[in-house]
């Protein structure tokens, strides 16, 4: 889901080389076609396309049922859609905040509800969800985006606690800055990772059955420090 996002593309390519079958969901037909051609060329066994706006949570169960039907059964679900949103607009206008919450939080929660139950019944499966380091602590420069990811982290913790014992692997992926179209307007610096690096980390985390993974790994100690700063100091910082 969010199959045309840069991290989803890079991850799918690694899986295509292993002859995976795909059910790709995204909004743009032209982009989805390009991604599908790329995955077929790289070895995908089959690729099925689904055009939809994932904000439309009412359509989720039907879409996921058709995915399960197309694939026979679902082994791995990767939820990769999201928007960075405009922090300044969002803090001035709640309707902007609400739209970001819908895309980044409500939509993945709806998908995970269906998928969690599906995998639980199947007694196996991997639910991999792209969150962000921004969800670790609210910062003035992007706390609306951070809120969606932080809430998603808590939701996934709870879901994992419920269904891990039934053989379901819930993976929370927390990338740092990644050089993708979503961050194209930001000036690149040494902290920006390549989507291919992040994708390799995702595949490795799936293989090793990790619960939470920071990608690249350097973000784990960075975020540990960020989380450890006392609130009385943190509130004065410009971050």
């Amino acid at each position: 889901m969010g199959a045309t996002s840069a991290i989803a593309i890079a991850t799918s390519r690694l899986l295509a080389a292993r002859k995976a079958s795909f059910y790709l969901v995204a909004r743009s037909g032209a982009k989805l076609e390009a991604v599908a051609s790329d995955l077929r060329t790289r070895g995908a066994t089959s690729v099925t396309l689904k055009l939809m706006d994932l904000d439309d949570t009412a359509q989720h169960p039907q879409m996921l049922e058709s995915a399960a039907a197309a694939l026979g059964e679902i082994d791995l679900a990767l939820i990769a859609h999201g928007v960075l949103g405009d922090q300044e607009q969002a803090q001035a206008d709640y309707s902007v905040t609400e739209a970001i919450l819908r895309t980044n939080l409500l939509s993945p929660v709806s998908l995970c509800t269906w998928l969690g139950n599906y995998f639980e019944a199947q007694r196996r499966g991997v639910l991999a969800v792209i969150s962000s380091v921004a969800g670790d602590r609210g910062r003035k420069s992007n706390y609306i985006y951070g809120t969606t990811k932080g809430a998603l982290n808590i939701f996934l913790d709870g879901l994992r606690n419920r269904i891990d014992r039934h053989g379901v692997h819930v993976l929370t992926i927390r990338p740092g800055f990644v050089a993708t179209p979503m961050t194209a307007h930001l000036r690149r610096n040494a902290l920006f990772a390549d989507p291919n690096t992040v994708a390799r980390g995702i595949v490795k985390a799936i293989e090793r059955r990790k619960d939470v993974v920071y990608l690249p790994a350097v973000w784990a100690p960075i975020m540990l420090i960020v989380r450890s700063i006392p609130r009385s100091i943190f509130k004065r910082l410009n971050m």
Partner: protein
Amino acid sequence: MANNQPRFESWGRYPTLQADLLPLHWTTDFPPKSLPPTAMLPVGAGRSYGDVCLLDRGTLLTTRGLDRLLHFDPETGVLRCEAGATLAEILEFAVPRGFFLTVTPGTKYVTVGGAIANDIHGKNHHIVGTFGSHLLRFELIRSDGSPLLCSPTENRDWYSATIGGMGLTGLITWAEICLRPIVSRKIQYQGIKFVGIDEFVALSQASTHVEYTVAWIDCVARGRNFARGIFMQGDHSDQPEPLNPSKAPRLTFPMDLPEFALNHFSVGIFNALYYNKQMGKRKTDLVDYEPFFYPLDSVLQWNRVYGKSGLLQFQCVIPWEHGTQSGIVRILEAVTASGLASFLAVMKVFGDKPSPGLLSFPKPGITLSLDFPIRQQVSFDLFDRLASIALEHSGRIYPAKDARMTAAQYQASYPEWRRFVEYVDPRFSSAFWQRVTKLA
């Protein structure tokens, strides 16, 4: 990072020009809903050395996001891919499937779009011609949004103008190239020591049946060692072996070296060691394709060796029948006399297979490529002298390596440029193009 840091550099890191970037991620991203007010130029990996991939105060359309492989036919070896895919990415895909690039330059980190725009050549030019000679089709999108499907039979004039067209005719979104089968990663290699240009030419003529030929030349050596070098030739091995993908390079050159690191002395020592590493006159070996084709790719960002001021490459071709050998000798003598040392000096005989490109660089003769650190005045004076010698011998200079050629020199050596002008997109330009068409 300082704000005056350019957002896009060419491989030589000279000149440094300020431009905005407009990253393209999908073939439908161009033209954007509102065109930028400035001139535009599509760029790939920034592996050309001079200013063909730069545009002062313009908008660079960066194409590395267009990296999808759209179709591959293992029966014919035809690959359709987006123009921002690099040759490294293609090899990673193709080698395990038993295919290799038909034409590859000395680095695999160029994009397909860049390879077309500069109509690149490789060590097998004498047999297969340029990259453009194996380009079946591509899509060109003009800034007014009109798409042109170009091939040797459709929109032939646009096909020809775009091959070697330095990105000026429009944006190439995807291309279909023809790969060649291989059964092994290995190259059956032979290195032959030579002294002098005449011996180099004789070796080249005796090796026209060998697919890959190139010579490394020591341009610091004087006297009886003048123009000594190693003639390197190879063919793809026909002994089947496992076709594993290459490992990603682990080394990145960590910093800009100070300017004094590369000097006449250090290069002279390196050259003497390199020449004498091979003991006998001839040496044969079975080598992996990576060190054979891409010796420098194993260290990422090796251009930092040249320091912050960057490097300039000089590559010319001197056609046969215009005192070719004496032209090459004059150039090498001018280098030796200047006291500047070229760390990498490479020579090759081009074949006579014509390129489909209107402005393609190669023509039958000897091509010589040298690179130098940039030292204000000293290097520029030398470059200007080398360019005049090449021109006096009816030669010309490779735009992909150039940052110094004058408009008069360009227009005299690429007379087709006048016909090319009508194919230039009205919204596109480059620093190179502005420079070489200035007096027109």
